[in-house]
């Protein structure tokens, strides 16, 4: 992980300073861009391993850069956004961003997200092993079996598909649309309430206390995340 370059696209200098110091002190190299124009150049020159992208840039929409980037690069993009900008986050995630951070956030959150993103980018998160182990959960994708704390848990086919999908993207947020699309098919991407009901049922089966979920986290207005650490 040491020496990998993170491209920081953020117009506010204090925020950029924080991101740079946090990243360099954890062994990353940093390329900084305060404008989209510079970011575009640095993205090709420095070949970043991951991109931190503030959507509200002074010289344009961060989404434009994201789309350009996605034409030739698969480097994970983590969007930086405020709490009440859920629509922007969803738009960015559906346009190919990998995750997001809600401002304000601390170093721990920042590094956790980057770790997850880099791991997925390196393909380490999707080993050939059909069995995924996350926390107390053991998900056997070949045999469609799930066990929590060694105890077998009965899941419906839809619940299993949801859990397996979230587990394959362990630690990463998946939007309502992505989940609906992958589990129910492309024609059913608007039936969010249906997804929520299945998620609630799944949570009752895998969480020790569903009212205080430890693993299956709701990202309000965006989607779901299966915590993996």
């Amino acid at each position, binding site marked *: 992980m040491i020496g990998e370059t993170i491209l920081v696209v953020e117009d506010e200098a204090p925020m950029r300073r924080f991101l740079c110091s946090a990243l360099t002190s954890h062994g990353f190299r940093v390329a900084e861009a305060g404008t989209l124009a510079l970011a575009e150049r640095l993205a090709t020159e420095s070949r970043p391993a991951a991109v931190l992208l503030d959507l509200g840039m002074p010289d344009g929409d961060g989404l434009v850069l994201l789309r350009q980037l996605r034409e030739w690069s698969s480097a994970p993009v983590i969007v930086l956004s405020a709490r009440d900008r859920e629509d922007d986050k969803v738009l960015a995630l559906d346009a190919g961003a990998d995750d997001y951070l809600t401002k304000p956030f601390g170093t721990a959150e920042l590094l956790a997200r980057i770790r997850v993103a880099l791991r997925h980018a390196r393909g380490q998160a999707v080993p050939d092993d059909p069995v995924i182990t996350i926390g107390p959960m053991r998900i056997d994708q070949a045999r469609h079996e799930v066990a929590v704390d060694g105890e077998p*848990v009965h899941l419906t086919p839809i619940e299993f*598909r949801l859990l397996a999908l979230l587990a394959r993207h362990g630690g990463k947020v998946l939007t309502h649309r992505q989940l609906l699309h992958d589990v*129910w098919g492309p024609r059913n991407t608007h039936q969010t309430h249906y997804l929520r009901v299945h998620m609630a049922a799944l949570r009752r089966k895998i969480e020790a206390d569903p009212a205080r979920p430890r693993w299956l986290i709701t990202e309000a207005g965006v989607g779901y995340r299966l915590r993996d650490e």
Partner: protein
Amino acid sequence: MTRTSRFARSYAIAVVGVAFATIGGLLARDHVTIADQAMLFLPAILVAALGGRGPSLAAAALSVGAFDFFFVPPRFTFAVSDMRSLITFVVMFVVGTAIGTLVARLRAAEEASREREHRTAALLAFTRDAAAATDVAGVEAAIVSHVRGVVDAVARVEVPDHGAVTLHGPVAIRLEGEPALSPDQHAFLEAVAHQGGVAIGRLQLATAARDAALRAKAEELRSALLSSVSHDLRTPLAAITGMATSLRERTAGDNEELDTIIAEAQRLSRLLTNLLSITKVESGAEPRREWVPLEEIVGSVLVRLEDELADHPVEVGLPAGALARIDPILVEQLLLNVLDNAAKHTAAGTPIDIRVSREPDAAVIEIADRGPGLPPGPRAQVFDKFFRGKTSAAGAGLGLAVCRGIAAAHGGTIEAWPRDGGGARFVARFPDGAPLPEVNEAESAEPDQPEQPALASAS
């Protein structure tokens, strides 16, 4: 000209015409035959027929009488010596009647078409005036003036209140003195009432469109302002939080100063969220309602408030699968505020209970604590903006005001009650407002992925 004088004149013409025919016949008596004399009466009947059916009949009868008296031998008596004259009488009368009827019919048709033309012109003029009117009063004025032109009565117009923007029905037109109306006038009034309604409907639609455009503009402005405020205040907060956590990480052991900076920055950020929410809710932005399992909302809030609620045992009573039709983000914030409020105002170690229940067409969330209870005064005052209870706990008194705004935006309520045995109870009620959509599970599941049921391990 009045009807009576026109009537009298028509008959006078009939009499005079017959008199002229008689005199003409008498003057030409030596030069013509009796048949020619009979012919002289036909023009008289024809002229009389222009006055209508009555005058033409009268002229025909008079002609027969005069012809008999003056020309048929024995002359100057009504006696008839030759039976052939009788045929002349009959033919004369029949021809006179027929001509009269035909002419009268022609006149009536001509009259009707002139009348119709007049009404059409009036209606056209009215439509033009009504279309040119820029407000409802203008349309009413056009109705009054054009009705007076056709019916000769003062009209009062009543515009029924249609409330929502729909295609407008006819207006009601009342005539002062309620004069008797011909069917034609009645038809005219009906047409005016309909056209007036259409004109008013058009005006209302135009007004509604203008209002909607204005609202959209205001909404656009508001959201631009909000996002700019949000950005300008959050950016320094994000930098402060970030830097403080960076420092915290590099500092060994406890560091209360840094912890406080981080916590306060977080609190400021939450306050900012409340401020933005109340602006959003109060500006009338529609909540984005979906059917959401309340478990999900409660769970999300409890996770977010893990630190704040660390000193309070929280008991959750939640029927599995209870749904509510709510905006998940807004209601999460409502719960967050009430719970945060409860945590702040109650002593460490006291329990907080969350109870969710379903009514036939509403979801109810109740949060009860064992704190000092409600402050004295009206119960609802705790929801007033910037109201602060007696306790010295920090807070701008915005949190509960936001809750009320969020509940109201859902057409629901939030109420504060004293709790039996001490403490406060906050009860939020969210009416569904729409039935739960039916989803066909078989149709929704992807057909091209046959899947065996995910069974527990066979052991």
